[in-house]
C-alpha cells in the first residue's frame, strides 16, 4: 500500500468519478475505512481527505490552459454540483 511506504502526512486524494455515490464510497473509504466492509480497507481509518477534481476550490488552482485541455469537456458532461455534494461533509467528518 502506498501509504505504508510514504505515510499520510500532507497526503490528499483527488477523485474523478462522475457519480455522487462513487465519490462518496471512495471518500469514506479513504477517510474512515471501507463502509461496505468488503475490501482490505475495512476498519482502516487512513484519515486521508478527498477532493473532486471539479470542485471549485481545486479548479481555481489549475493552470487555465491545462483545465481547458483536460477538464472542460468533462465539466460540461457532468452534473458537477450533484457529484461534489458529498465531499465537504465527509472531509469534515
Amino acid at each position, binding site marked *: 500500500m*502506498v501509504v505504508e511506504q*510514504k505515510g499520510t*502526512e*500532507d*497526503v*490528499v*486524494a*483527488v*477523485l*474523478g*468519478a*462522475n*457519480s455522487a455515490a*462513487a465519490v462518496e464510497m*471512495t471518500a469514506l473509504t*479513504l477517510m474512515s475505512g471501507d463502509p461496505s466492509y468488503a475490501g482490505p480497507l475495512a476498519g482502516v481509518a487512513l484519515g*486521508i*481527505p478527498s*477532493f473532486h*477534481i*471539479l470542485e471549485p*476550490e*481545486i479548479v481555481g*488552482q*489549475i*493552470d487555465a490552459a*491545462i*483545465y481547458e*485541455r*483536460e*477538464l472542460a469537456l*468533462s465539466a460540461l458532461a*457532468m452534473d458537477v454540483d450533484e*457529484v461534489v455534494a458529498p465531499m465537504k461533509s465527509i472531509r469534515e467528518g
Partner: protein
Amino acid sequence: MDLKGKRVLVIGERDGVNAPAIEACVKSAGAEVLYAETLCFV
C-alpha cells in the same frame, strides 16, 4: 486547501475524469503525485 506541496493519490474514473487528466491538473497546481489509477466499473 492548497494543492501546492501536497502529495496526491489520484483516483480517476473512465466515465468521469481519467487519472492522466487529473495528474496533469494537480501537477500544474504544484502537487506531487504518489499514485494514479483510472477505475472502470463497466
